[in-house]
């Protein structure tokens, strides 16, 4: 990502296409304030909003009860930028990342041009590793029957990506209703938090242990098979429960779904209830309310959950061995196998390609949803 001088470029300008005309920068601050109430059927006057917020609103998890816009808003943009100075805020983290992330990352990048010696690497400047990543033997050689087949590393990256999308989709489908339930159906904040943390708990057990714990559930002699045999549903234990794509997806979803529940829950909990009430009073159907208010307002949470899960799954290398019996390879496992035979340059090339793929995914997600939207 190159530095852009225009601050609105990159992630700032990313507004969902549907709403871009309504909530873009040109809208006066007072109307952006509610964020949502710029949509067609809703109230658009400051007076109405003020009335709505007059009643005591419950404090959401992350935000304050909304306050009616005042004249302050109008003045705001003429004032010096308030808050702590940016350099002070970003200095510690930037310094930390420079030393502990960018220097190593840069050295890995350098390594990717070095030559593998079979027992490590030696300084050189060669594109050989990149060539080996992209070009398979016989690629573009018309005499070979499979001359258009991309190299195994590209195919692995592609299958990793495809699989990631599947699992991410499942995670989102499972996580959203749960987050919705917690934030919208459970009234008491204490209970919201308690129920949320309860589903978080398994996440605090080492994933090595959690992955192993699937075996007694799904195996040929596992609980599910025992149960099915006992009730007579099947005669012979089924083997596809474990060491199959099924178990792999199950385990991954169980491992990572919580990562999506959290952010979605946060952004849903922030939605001002009075807004929903108002919409309801004005005759919006529940589905309309969901589509027009809840969904758009929860998008940042969805986006963040997607980023978490996407990145985790793309880098996944440990779970397949335990629950899929190692019967697949991901770019993560490829990196590991070259790493463990001391071919660091080629592991580095794979790592960079993986990072590029992840970066594209994250940029894409942020193109869909602006997570930096202001009031």
């Amino acid at each position, binding site marked *: 990502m190159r530095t852009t001088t225009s601050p609105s470029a990159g992630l700032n300008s990313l507004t969902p296409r549907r709403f871009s005309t309504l909530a873009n920068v040109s809208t006066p601050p007072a109307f952006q304030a509610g964020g949502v109430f710029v949509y067609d059927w809703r109230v658009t006057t400051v007076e109405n909003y003020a009335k709505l917020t007059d009643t005591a609103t419950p404090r959401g998890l992350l935000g304050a009860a909304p306050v009616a816009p005042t004249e302050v808003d109008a003045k705001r943009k003429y004032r010096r930028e308030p808050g702590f100075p940016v350099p002070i805020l970003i200095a510690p983290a930037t310094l930390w990342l420079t030393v502990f992330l960018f220097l190593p990352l840069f050295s890995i990048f350098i390594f990717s041009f070095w030559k593998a010696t079979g027992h490590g690497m030696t300084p050189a400047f060669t594109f050989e590793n990149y060539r080996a990543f992209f070009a398979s033997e016989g690629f573009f050689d018309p005499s070979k029957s499979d001359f258009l087949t991309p190299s195994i590393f590209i195919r692995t990256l592609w299958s990793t990506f495809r699989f990631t999308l599947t699992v991410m989709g499942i995670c989102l489908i499972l996580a959203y209703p749960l987050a919705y339930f917690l934030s919208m159906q459970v009234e008491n904040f204490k209970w919201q938090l308690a129920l949320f943390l309860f589903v978080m708990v398994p996440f605090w057990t080492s994933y090595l242990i959690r992955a192993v714990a699937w075996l007694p559930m799904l195996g040929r*002699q596992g609980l599910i098979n025992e149960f099915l045999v006992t009730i007579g549903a099947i005669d012979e234990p089924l083997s596809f429960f474990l*060491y199959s794509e099924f178990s792999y997806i199950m385990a991954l979803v169980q491992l990572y779904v919580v990562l999506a529940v959290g952010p979605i829950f946060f952004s849903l909990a922030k939605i001002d209830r009075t807004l929903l009430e108002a919409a309801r009073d004005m005759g919006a159907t529940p589905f309309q309310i969901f589509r027009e208010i809840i969904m758009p307002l929860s998008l940042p949470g969805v986006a963040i959950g997607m980023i978490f899960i996407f990145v985790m799954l793309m880098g996944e290398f440990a779970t397949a061995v335990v629950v899929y019996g190692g019967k697949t390879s991901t770019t993560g496992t490829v990196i590991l*196998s070259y790493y463990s035979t001391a071919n660091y340059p080629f592991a580095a090339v794979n790592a960079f390609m993986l990072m590029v793929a992840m970066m594209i995914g994250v940029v894409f997600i942020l193109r869909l949803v602006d997570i930096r939207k202001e009031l």
Partner: protein
Amino acid sequence: MRVQKSKWSRRSFMKATAAGVATGMVGGFSRRASADEGLRSVGLGVSEINEIQGKATKDLGFPVAGQALGYGEMLSKILNQNDQYEIAEGYYHDLTFYQPAKVLQPLDTKKIKDWDKVTNLCKTGKLTPESSVGQGQAPYTMMWCDENGTRVQKESQYVIMVPAFHNADSMGYNPKATKRPIESWSELLNKDWKGKVGLLNVPSIGVMDCAMAVEALGLKKFANKGNMTKAEIDYMIEYLIPLKKAGHFRAFWENFGQSVNLMVNGEVVLESMWSPAVAAIQAEGVPCNYAFPKEGMRGWHGGLSVSAKVKGKQLDQAYEYINWWLAGWPAAFVARQGYYHSIPDNAKKYLEPEEWDYWYDGKAAAKDLPDPFGTITIKKGESRSGGSYWNRYSKIAVWNSNMDENDYLTKRWTEFLNS
């Protein structure tokens, strides 16, 4: 049996927990006083066992701290951080990486007390004069070096790794399920066991096991299974991909624990396996035999090396530790897990006669025998498949190896897994 009396008592449990937490607190922080006092050793859970390093600390009078790691982590640490350990308890075939990288130092055999007693299996590859020499990276091809640490292919005064523990691997099987003894590597690819076969997921070793099977089936002859050519690797992968697609393999395992679980859970009836897994599986009440294939076993050998960074007093201590390892106490300890030692006579000193008869002589156990931690794993009357130590090691078909075409193999193996 010790475990039987373990009746739940709340008090003893609380006491144990409290003690545990306390030792945890102390252990969490305690570090050796300084980096030039005592030894740090890295290796696998095979030899980095608290009781071994604890006993060494007691016997030698200086602290020996063991750090157990997984295989990949161990290799990477030995190769990249030789300032982070003094002793590396590694494996001969991995000298492919360590030796040219010069991370380990040559060890003078004159300073090793029992060097003369070390078996010829390590020194010449032939345990007995009649033994055949296995293909691949046998210890004797990797071990010898000159005083600069450069590998030489003849006996010399210096070695890069002092042989300590070793074993020969083949396949484990559940005799109740197979209903017949397994006597050839070809069984690994036998369609009778479709969907119930496990394979080691380390490309170089996995492909060797399968090559052994292909050879046993009479399909192809390999010049050196321990160092295959690209064409041979291609042949193997092309042969294996349809098998995998047909669902022949239940799982590929990566660590000892997984291989045990596969058999115990009834997921596989036959798998490539490390021999100590047999005892672990039997300990859970699942029948398991170890195959002694007529083609020979796949051997591996581990040993002790010293980081190139070590010198002075610490180097002396390193030699002391190596001598202590060879003297026999740890040999007996690892023997109870099924591993062999490079000086069997020294192991004998620390083993009870019944243990010696069972583990080394291949005789039926004259009484119940414990594992190193005191749990009874061997029942009276059982015996090891493959017979005596000398019988087993006279027929090593191939040694664990890292091939010249390792990168190509890794690539094709990825393709195999992804098919």
